[in-house]
């Protein structure tokens, strides 16, 4: 268990709603939900969720911390914003889902090996490494995430796509040697480090 998690449990005890309000992006809006269910019905990946958004909001209020933060449900969000534009209480549902996923991920409670969790992590790390996304490395790393053998299999399965994109000049094999990026990489990294420092302090990840 991470220290941040132990601290959070200690600090908020039985009040998971308070914890969410304090530490999760747009978490203060969770209490506005009136359980109409329009988000659940609007989600394109609805059938794939264990818990729909409105159910998660109710679970938060009911203090079901382990069930919520250990769930893979938030990772089913495709960021389509259907729920958000239809919500009669204007809850920023998409952002809350992202926020919950981020919080669970940072606390080390999100399911291990959850594919979107892994891909999302890969994506961010890829993007900030050079300041711009290296699509080739992103693709390769994604397919080889499970090790060399399964990676080769998966990549072979998709090789017609990769080859097609290459032929269509839309995938650059030279990116394996670095690819594009921002010039002031030092400054870019300094900004992210500082932002992370501020956020971690606020959300209880650092003392």
């Amino acid at each position: 268990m991470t220290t941040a998690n132990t601290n959070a449990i200690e600090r908020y005890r039985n009040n998971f709603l308070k914890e969410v309000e304090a530490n999760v992006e747009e978490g203060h809006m969770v209490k506005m939900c009136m359980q109409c269910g329009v988000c659940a019905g609007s989600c394109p990946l609805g059938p794939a969720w264990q818990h729909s958004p409105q159910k998660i909001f109710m679970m938060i209020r009911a203090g079901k911390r382990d069930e919520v933060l250990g769930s893979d449900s938030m990772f089913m969000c495709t960021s389509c914003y259907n729920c958000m534009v239809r919500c009669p209480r204007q809850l920023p549902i998409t952002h809350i889902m992202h926020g919950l996923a981020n919080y669970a991920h940072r606390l080390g409670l999100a399911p291990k090996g959850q594919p979107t969790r892994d891909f999302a992590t890969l994506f961010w790390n890829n993007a900030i490494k050079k300041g711009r996304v290296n699509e080739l490395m992103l693709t390769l790393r994604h397919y080889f995430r499970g090790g060399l053998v399964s990676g080769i299999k998966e990549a072979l399965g998709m090789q017609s796509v990769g080859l097609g994109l290459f032929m269509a000049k839309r995938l650059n094999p030279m990116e394996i040697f670095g690819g594009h990026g921002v010039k002031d990489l030092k400054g870019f990294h300094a900004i992210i480090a500082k932002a992370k420092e501020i956020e971690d302090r606020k959300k209880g990840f650092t003392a």
Partner: protein
Amino acid sequence: MAKKEYAFYPGCSSQLKASASNYLVSTNSICKSLDIKLTEIPDWNCCGASVGYCEGGELPRIAINARNFAQAETHLPGQDIVATCAACWLSARESKERLDGSAQLLKETNEALAAAGLHYNGGANVRHMVEVLIEDFGYDGLKAPMKKSLEGLKIAGYVGCQTNRPFGIDGESFENPMYLDKMVETLGGEALTKYEQKVTCCGGALAFSEPEKSQKQIRDIVESAYDHGAEMIVTPCPLCQANVEVYQSEINKKQGTKFNMPVVYYSQLMTVAYGGSAKDAALDGQLIKAEKLEKIAGK
């Protein structure tokens, strides 16, 4: 028409030899025809995209967007920031609205920016290329440079999510936006206005991580286009374009369908209507060749 100038935010996928390079090439072509001057924001960086949420968190994502704003404010003062990518536009605009809405957040963001000697004053105006075309030129204005009609082309306007929700194009509805249809009609094509999958999600980043689930979405999007007699799909979003075009062969393989539906950008349609060649429209960048459009371009 007076030359219009904008601070251009091309985004990662629009790079040369990146997945949406055909979007960039064709955008440059239409800008030439419309006398638009796009100046790249110096040293711009990735917007973080929606899927950056997991590792990126809140403030770091806002801070990197603010870095772009600060660069634009300093080097291209007074110019609207224009993005072609739906995700770039959304991330940037979302960051902008959060910063506009909270002095505390702006303060923290500037604290982060100061680490690189930058400062954001709050003056960014973030727009999508489609907004620029519709609001600054208007459908009549878009007609002006036309040299050819796209007559006879049946086109399904696939708007997707992020150019449509939560902000969308002013005056359009989330459930049935009409602007792509109107653009197609402006160019002389036949818009399939009853196409009901126009705002269905393509699966976004989950096309990578949850292929089965997103391919179900993509199948609906393509199938309905066929049902309505479409000859191609047009979209304003790079991820929509890539997902809907690229995975058709996968779906064919797994599910025995025979999808072969070209998916193009509005900018490619416009380039051809403005008399550009297939190369100007970057039609060589299509995985599934848009033959009918190529034919018009070749005329």
